[in-house]
Every structure is written in C-alpha cells, then in structure tokens.
C-alpha cells in the first residue's frame, strides 16, 4: 500500500515542482515591463558609457591643439604586446637648441588588450581612456591610429599641474 501512496505522492510532488517553475516564466511573460533588452543602435543617444570605460587609448588635446606627450617612450616599454610605437624627431627650438620631440604616437588598436598600463604609467598624463566602443571597420589598417593630431604641439606647463590633474 505504501508503495502506491508513494507512487502518487511522487507524481503530485513532481507536477507541483513543475508548476513552480512555470510560475516564474509565466510571471515574466505577463510582466513585459521587466524586459531588459537594450535596443542598441536606437538607444545610441541615451547610451552613456561609464566615465572609466576602457574603449580605446586616446591622447587628449586642449583647445590650442596641444597635448602633453613628451615622447619619453615609457608607454611603449610598458605595453605588453607592442601596440604602441613612438616615432620621435629632433627639431631645433626657438632657443636654438636641439630638442627631441614626438612626431607620431602610433597606436595599434587591433593589438591592444586594454590592460591600461600605458595610461597608468605615463609620467606626464598624456594618455587617457576614450569612451568610443564602436571600433568595427572594414579595413584593419584603419585600426592603426596616430594619437597626436597633426600640427599639435607639446603643452608646456609646470610638472606640478600635471600631478594635480592626476590626483
């Protein structure tokens, strides 16, 4: 007799447990407000990335088209996969002295692993993280970028200011 009672008990418990699960899915079916889908291209305007989002490495320029990169090459050393190349040139400045200056700060986005060591270790805070995340291009050569804008120059400022900004 016990066998038969247990048999039916099993059936009822099984069906009950199934109903429990169906309650959860049924709840969500009738509560479409809880849908979490983000409709990506449409919500571009509202889509704000977090300020620390690591989209790509950029070199901020101010309104005078000046950046802070001295071309020291520390970011290049600190990059684990060689996605940064720094080309420097030697120019003669106003005082008539030879000066080493950055020519091109080349950044291979296709090789970047977004570890953040270049931004972290840059002594003059020339690099920062950009929020751009739509990196898809049809030609992979387009992923190689020159970070310093054409015609830009080094911003001359006391070192303490740079530190303050960082802090």
């Amino acid at each position: 007799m016990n066998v038969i009672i247990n048999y039916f008990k099993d059936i009822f418990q099984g069906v009950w447990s199934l109903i429990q699960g169906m309650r959860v899915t049924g709840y969500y079916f009738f509560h479409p407000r809880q849908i979490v889908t983000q409709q990506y291209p449409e919500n571009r305007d509202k889509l704000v990335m977090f300020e620390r989002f690591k989209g790509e490495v950029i070199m901020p320029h101010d309104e005078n088209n000046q950046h802070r990169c001295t071309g020291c090459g520390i970011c290049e050393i600190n990059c684990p996969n060689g996605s940064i190349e720094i080309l420097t040139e030697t120019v003669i400045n106003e005082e008539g002295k030879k000066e080493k200056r950055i020519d091109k700060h080349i950044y291979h986005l296709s090789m970047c692993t977004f570890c953040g060591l270049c931004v972290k270790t840059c002594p003059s805070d020339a690099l920062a993280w950009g929020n751009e995340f739509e990196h898809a291009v049809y030609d992979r050569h387009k992923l190689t970028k020159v970070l310093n804008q054409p015609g830009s120059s080094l911003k001359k400022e006391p070192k303490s200011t740079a530190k303050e900004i960082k802090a």
Partner: protein
Amino acid sequence: MSTETSTLNLFIGENDEYIINMGPQHPSTHGVLRLELALKGELVERVVPHVGYIHRGIEKMSEKLPYPQIIHLTDRMDYLSALMNNEAVCLAAESALQVEVPERVKYVRTILAELQRLASHQLWWCAFGMDLGALTTFFYGLRDREKILDIFEESFGSRLLHSYYLPGGLMHDIHPNFQKRVKEFLKYFRKKLPEYDQLLTGNVIFQNRVKGIGLLSKEDAISYGVTGPSGRGSGFACDVRKHQPYSAYDKVEFTECLHTDGDTWARYKVRVQEMWESMHIIEQLIDNIPEGDYTAKMKAIIKLPAGEYFQRVETARGELAVYIVSDGNKTPYRIHFRTPNFSNMFVMSKIGVGCKIADLVALGGSLDLVIPDIDR
C-alpha cells in the same frame, strides 16, 4: 609503455565501437574542447579528452614580460575569474617583495573576488541549465550577471578582462559609487536567487537529471586534484580561502560549502550555496572598507629577489597556484600556473564512463569548465 599497447589510445573505429567526437565545435563543451567518446548505444564507454586547441603559451610569453604585464595575460586563462587570477600573481609578487599592501586594497580585492565569483557562478548556472535543455535559465542568469559587470565597468572600465590589479595594490581607486551599487545589487540578487531555485533547483526533471550522475569519490577528487566547488561536492575540503587565508578572508565569517555525495547534484548545490556565501562575505566587508591608499609604495620596475615563490588562490573554479622562479631580473625565469580546470577536466575520463550522452553533458556542465584555462 608505447602508445600502441595503451588502453586509452585506441584508434577510431577499432573494435566496432561507436566513436563520436564531441567538440571542438559543439554547443555544450563551452569552448574548443574535444571529447572522443566511445559509445554503446547511448552509454558512454570511454571518454578521451583532447585539449590544446587554444594553447597560447602564456607561460612562455610570461618569461619575456615584466610582472605588471603578466597580469593582463592571466585574465585570459580563466576569463570568468579574471580578478582572482590577477590577484594570484600580485600576491606572489607581494610576498616575494615582502610588501605590506594597505588594508583598503585587501578589502577591495576580497569584495571584488567574491563579486567575480558570483558573476562566474551565475554564468555557470545559466549555462548549466542550458546544457540540460532549460534555455530560459540562460537569460535569467545573464540578466543578473549584467548588474555585476556594470559595477566592474564603473570601477575599472572593463567587463570581462579586467587587469585591474598591480603588484602592490590596485591600478586606481574604486569608483565612489562602488559601495552603493554593490549594496543595491545584493538587495536585488537576494530576491532573484530564490527564483533560480524555483525555476531549476526544485524541478523534478532537473533533479532526476542530476542526481547520482558522475559520482566522484573523495579519494578520486583528491588524487585527480579536483578542487573548487567540484571538489567540495565530493567532500574534499579544498577551499584555499579557508585553509590558507589571503587578502581579507581571515577577517570574514563564512562557511566552506561541503557536500559528500560527489554527484552532479552535489556540485550544483555547492555552487548555489556558494552564491549565498559570497553575498554574505561581501555584506560583511562592504560597509567597512577602510580609507587609505589604493596601492603600496612600489618601485617603478618590479624585480623579485632570486628565489621561488608559490601562491595559491581560490578562483571560482578551484585552486589556482602560481609558481614563480625568479633569477632577480624584472621578468620571471619561469612561471607556472596550476590552473583549476586542467585537473577538473581530466577527471571526466574517469567519471564520464558508464553514463549516457545526456549525462555527460550534465556532468561537463557541473564541472564548470573554462577551456582557455586548461590550455593556457
């Protein structure tokens, strides 16, 4: 013994066995793992795992890289416990340099590790449900995991591969909103976790699918080195957090979830229980993060003194051990990662024998494999 006489290396088609390849392109191996199965009808008679499809030589690459740069490679081993992997290298370097990291760093590392564990277990839960055919679990798990990833993204800008730690501390401080958001998440997830139980844990079909499948005895678990939730499901008390506490784990109360059945069901229960435990740990720490520096004073170039260093860390999948041989240079002479999945996976060739194909999928899901961690 040569390979010809080996019992494991039978050629395909020999002995009229039904040999079938599960993977590398298979939905339930969660990556490019290849299992060569010998079948008798639905029964699996032999499982031969083949790995190495995404072997990248992280150990060899690391020999050429300074320590801060190794960290970003560890992300890519077990990408679901990236922060714990980072932590392992950092702890090894810190203990070698005998640097005392600030309390704040310890607290933050512990909280982040537990958040990462939660995220990892959520992903495991939804993938496990999907392995068993309940596709809805996948979306619920990912929905909740998204909240954790948002916390990560706000604090350090990345969602999966963080590279957030440096030897000596963190790369930068946590976001001011961090505590608020974590507390919000805990409140949210405490409501959602019981839903998981309703949907899957209690389900009679699910229970029948997982109970008594893939029995792994405690002795075998130890001998195979099956650690993490998979090992604890067999009663192997292998929680490094408990037995060799690091970071702030000695300051928190938590139980090591142990089940002695050793089947898929036990492993499932351990993980679900661990989610509750992780939330418990975070709750103890989140309000008490001490003020202070986010990193210890470190030299610009980190050189470990010559010697050998060994650091064990509990990741979401088990015990990760880093073994560093340093010759005093800024790069390691040899670095070895003892990854949890490597040992966890090969046990399949033992416990997978005698179950059905569907069980093998459940079993593989319960071991929670991340293939890049095996291949390194």
